[in-house]
């Protein structure tokens, strides 16, 4: 039954036309080639037709934003494509950095009036259960 549910989930995920995902779930912060920084590589996939832009954020356990560097904080991810990016955090901020998230950026000219904003967060160095 559990396998069936998993298959249904994966099949529906694959056929979805309005999805937002961020992987890996538990990225590892590794020493960077820049002294004093650690980095992590992420990948996001956009299957939301109504969204072209996403914002990257790094947060504490209480969802307070902490400083980080990446090529573009607002990324353009056209429908049906994925985007790989690397973020850099100062060594001294590493203990506080818990979540890395991508958040959909909504357009103000949308036709619908009850709009869904999506946010997916991965956890740094999370414990596998």
């Amino acid at each position, binding site marked *: 039954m559990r396998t069936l549910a998993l298959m249904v*989930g994966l099949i529906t995920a694959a056929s*979805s036309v*309005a*999805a*937002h995902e961020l992987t890996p779930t*538990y990225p590892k912060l590794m020493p960077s080639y820049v002294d004093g920084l650690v980095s992590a590589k992420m990948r996001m996939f956009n299957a939301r037709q109504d969204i072209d832009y996403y914002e990257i954020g790094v947060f504490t356990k209480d969802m307070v934003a902490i400083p980080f560097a990446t090529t573009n904080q607002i990324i353009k991810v056209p429908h049906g494509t994925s985007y790989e990016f690397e973020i850099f955090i100062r060594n001294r901020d590493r203990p506080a950095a818990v979540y890395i998230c991508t958040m959909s950026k909504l357009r103000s000219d949308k036709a619908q009036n*009850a709009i*869904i904003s999506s*946010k997916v967060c991965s956890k740094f160095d999370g414990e596998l259960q």
Partner: protein
Amino acid sequence: MRITTIAALALIIPVAAMAETTIEGNIASKCIINTDTQGVYGNPTPDKLSTATTDGGVLPIIRYDVAIADYYTAKITTPTSFSTSPTLSDTVAWSGSTSVSNTSDASMSGYETNKVTYEATTEFDLTVAGTVWFEVSSTAEYGYSKAFPGGTYRAIVQAECIAN
């Protein structure tokens, strides 16, 4: 003798090829947020905007797919302000709720009873692998039975999937 050798080879070759073919798979944990239905506010009375179908609205439906159990928490926040509206001179009273509308696995039946609600946010612990659909209702009432000014109104439902 020659025909026998060829026949023997023909039988052996596909078997050898099949023996060397391997397929590997890997399932990684991930959460996918799907916006199955974008909502629409109905305007049943001049002072009210509501996504309820009885009020002429459309309930937003959000689908969460998780590949492995216990890795994520779903958080859905109903609107508490308009992102777009005409200038409003009076207060707006917001109400909303989020509930499980469908699941891919019977063992997800506990999601609804175990949900945690605070302010406008509802949390669901995604303890079972598979797919769950949430429907979100939202209502805005203006002043004391005051008519909303004409114009465009938009509000945002925030769907989050947070790694545990």
